[in-house]
């Protein structure tokens, strides 16, 4: 897909989807296995050194792992070994996109009250232009993961705003 640069001060860049995991724990609230290294609070995100969201607590007892780094994989494996949950490889389920620029927030505000949704949260699962999505704040804007089957229409909806 091509980069969509539009006139209202935002860019939407589809990213290449790589290996993507979801970790689902067997219970919520969470047990002791989630103490160290886990973003355990609702909407909490563990960022990597490059400021990329690496472990997103987007739903109760459920984390998105966009590009599993070795240390995150180790963390997941430890939790699995402890019998706390399971890992599902969901490669292809989520289309990652980067929405950036001064107009980025306004784009999302067209669809939802983004400020409230991310109030005291680093990420949120929500519905953007009727498309199931996960949003996380990142440098200069937002990292988005949109359900892949909806992605084309999501992009079209955003691009319409820049027309």
């Amino acid at each position, binding site marked *: 897909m091509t980069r969509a640069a539009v006139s209202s001060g935002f860019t939407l860049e589809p990213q290449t989807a790589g290996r993507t995991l979801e970790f689902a724990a067997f219970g919520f609230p969470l047990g002791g296995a989630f103490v160290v290294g886990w973003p355990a609070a609702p909407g909490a995100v563990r960022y990597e050194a490059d400021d990329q969201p690496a472990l997103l607590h987007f739903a109760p007892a459920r984390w998105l792992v966009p590009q599993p780094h070795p240390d995150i994989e180790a963390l997941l494996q430890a939790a699995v070994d402890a019998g706390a949950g399971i890992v599902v490889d969901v490669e292809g389920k989520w289309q990652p996109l980067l929405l950036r620029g001064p107009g980025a927030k306004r784009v999302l505000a067209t669809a939802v009250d983004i400020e409230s949704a991310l109030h005291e949260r680093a990420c949120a*699962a*929500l519905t953007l232009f009727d498309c199931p999505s996960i949003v996380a704040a990142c440098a200069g804007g937002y990292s988005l993961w949109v359900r892949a089957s909806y992605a084309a229409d999501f992009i079209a909806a955003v691009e319409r705003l820049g027309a």
Partner: protein
Amino acid sequence: MTRLVCPFCGPRHLREFEFHKTLPAPGAGEFASVYERVDSLELSVEHWQHVGGCRGWLLVRRNPSTGAVLDCRLVGGGGAA
């Protein structure tokens, strides 16, 4: 006024939530659970799902005469985390 605050996601628009059913009285048999409803002007105990958000299932207690939400927690355990 019906406004749901998802224990996981915080306050969200009602459009994101889907009502499933009102709950039977405790101990109701299978037929009663599926078909019978005990109506009340003050209290309705319901299952909802936050389909447009975290997809968590919610146990909601509402006043159907005013719409006021008295309580909203995750069915699987835990109130506001």
